[in-house]
């Protein structure tokens, strides 16, 4: 088969992947794998949301789980107490998280570096403590039980196979939003801020405003993820929305490469699936996870071209690909 052109080949690959992902629930996989799949989509959503702030705009945020939690609790409470429809709960959860994010960003985006980090960490803690102690509203450590599953078009989305589509839908929608945003002027402004604040300011970018906007959008999306989480788990309690969760999400963003959409998808997939794959090692599981985390950071960092064997291997692979292309195509493909 001719490797005609890179673009067409990639588009084909993409279509195949899309078909597989859409039909995943129909492939007869176990409930457990489908559950994991739903979580992967939710975490991709979370990683992408943090990517707005930390990846694209370069603002470190260590308290992101707080907005995840706000979204989850708002959505759960609205559906439990006021019996509102799932989509309304989700929208309001996103709004609540977004507004909270905006309020946090107003003071926080004036800070930078370590100060910003600790303030976001502090906000994360504050939200956690409030969730834990505002017993009248959130039932604190007792958690919220019996959260209703979404009912759309008369179908109850309770099983992982069906919930998969809800998670998939929202995740893809957000990813498209993200892609457009990066490509747009606003996105480029943010990347300018990340790369060199002073230069960006000199070019007329209102740094503060853009950072606040990015943070607010980021939190709103985390709120969506929270809502999805709550209506899937059917039980939430404050213990999920702590600092550890925030750092896990940040790890996904960093691992995937700041600002890279495909990167955070891959990283979310890897970091969600990893504990599962390591289950066989039970006692050593978290240790291996830690080692892998550090290893992944170092491997990304190390200038592998310093090591000749890796270099040679890469060159060899490149030469093979070039040879195939040259044989099959014309001058266009010869210049790889």
């Amino acid at each position, binding site marked *: 088969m001719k490797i005609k052109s890179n673009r067409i080949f990639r588009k084909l690959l993409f279509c195949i992947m899309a078909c597989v992902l859409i039909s995943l629930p129909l492939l007869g996989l176990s409930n457990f794998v489908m559950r994991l799949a739903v979580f992967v989509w939710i975490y991709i959503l979370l990683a992408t949301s943090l990517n707005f702030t930390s990846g694209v705009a370069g603002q470190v945020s260590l308290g992101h789980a707080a907005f995840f939690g706000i979204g989850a609790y708002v959505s759960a409470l609205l559906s439990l107490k006021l019996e509102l429809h799932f989509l309304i709960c989700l929208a309001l959860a996103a709004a609540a998280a977004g507004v909270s994010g905006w309020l946090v960003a107003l003071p926080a985006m004036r*800070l930078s570096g*370590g100060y910003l980090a600790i303030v976001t960490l502090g906000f994360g*803690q504050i939200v956690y403590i409030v969730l834990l102690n505002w017993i009248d509203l959130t039932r604190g450590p007792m958690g919220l039980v019996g959260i209703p599953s979404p009912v759309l078009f008369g179908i109850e989305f309770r099983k992982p196979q069906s919930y998969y589509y809800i998670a998939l839908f929202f995740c893809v929608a957000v990813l498209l939003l993200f892609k457009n945003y990066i490509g747009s002027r606003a996105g480029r402004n943010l990347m300018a801020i990340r790369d060199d604040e002073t230069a960006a300011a000199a070019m007329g970018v209102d740094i503060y405003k853009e950072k606040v906007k990015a943070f607010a959008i980021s939190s709103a999306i985390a709120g969506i993820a929270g809502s999805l989480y709550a209506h899937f788990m059917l039980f939430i309690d404050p213990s999920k929305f702590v600092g550890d969760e925030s750092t896990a999400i940040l790890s996904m963003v960093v691992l995937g490469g700041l600002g890279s959409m495909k990167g955070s998808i891959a990283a979310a997939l890897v970091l969600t699936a990893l504990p599962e794959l390591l289950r066989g090692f039970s006692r050593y599981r978290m240790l291996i996870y*830690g080692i*892998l*985390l550090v290893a992944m950071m170092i491997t*990304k960092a190390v200038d592998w071209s310093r090591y000749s064997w890796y270099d040679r291997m890469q060159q060899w692979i490149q030469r093979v690909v070039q040879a195939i292309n040259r044989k099959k195509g014309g001058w266009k493909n010869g210049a790889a």
Partner: protein
Amino acid sequence: MQFFTQQVVSAIALGSVYALTAIGYSMVFGVLELINFSHASVFMVGAFLYYILTNIAALPGLPAFLLSVLITGFLGVAVEKITLRPLRLNNQPKFASLISTIGTSIILQNIMFLLMGSETLPYQTLFPGQSISLGETRISYMQIVIVAVSTMLLVSLSLFIKKSRAGMAMRATAQNYDAAELMGISVDSVISLTFFIGSAIAAISGIFVCMNYQSVDITIGTSFGLKTFAATVLGGIGNLGGAVLGSLIIAFAEVFTAAYINTSIRDLAAFVVLVIVLLVRPNGLLGKPVQKKV
């Protein structure tokens, strides 16, 4: 009145416990501009080393103490060499180092978990049960020791950084990494030294804190870590006096909220104070604003 005095005493005692750790944190943070999450785990490892040496290897107190501190210092250097140096040398964004320190923290915690289990173990203390009384308020000898040790640490570290050549090298590296290298300072060595001192101090604080509460377990790093991190930032990153000041402020906020408002929101008070201070002074109380140069 007595109630009030008791709270003041508690606050000063708690503040000095935080200060012990915050000083070391501040120093590392100042030189490297790195949020070092593994510091808390190193703190915990140091404390456990002392436990292991005194209980299992049955060494007497002082040699065990010195040995734990030294080993922890070298552990810190090793951590830097393995997990952070590659990132620094390849100009990775600060985020990558942050995640790496998180990974290190997980590794250290889990190694201790596999070795010692997750139970809380009793810790040998100095002067058990002895205290002095100020009216109805009692201050234990251990608490006085901690105040004394934090003061000593603060003074000696400040002198070291201000007067010694190594200290000057550290300050130069903190100010401008590249310029320091150009001036012939071996930045790698300076950073290793910083990590050594920082980790050794973490061990010292870990040991004294556990002596104070007479127990140790693998979670002490994280429970103290957050507040001391906040204290460090509150006082101004890199400023040792600020670290102590920040620790006292946070301790006072916590204790007085617990005593006069509600015990379960004491942590909340600490972080709210942090946020308010940073709003007013974005570089911490005693921190100097960093000039951004083009």
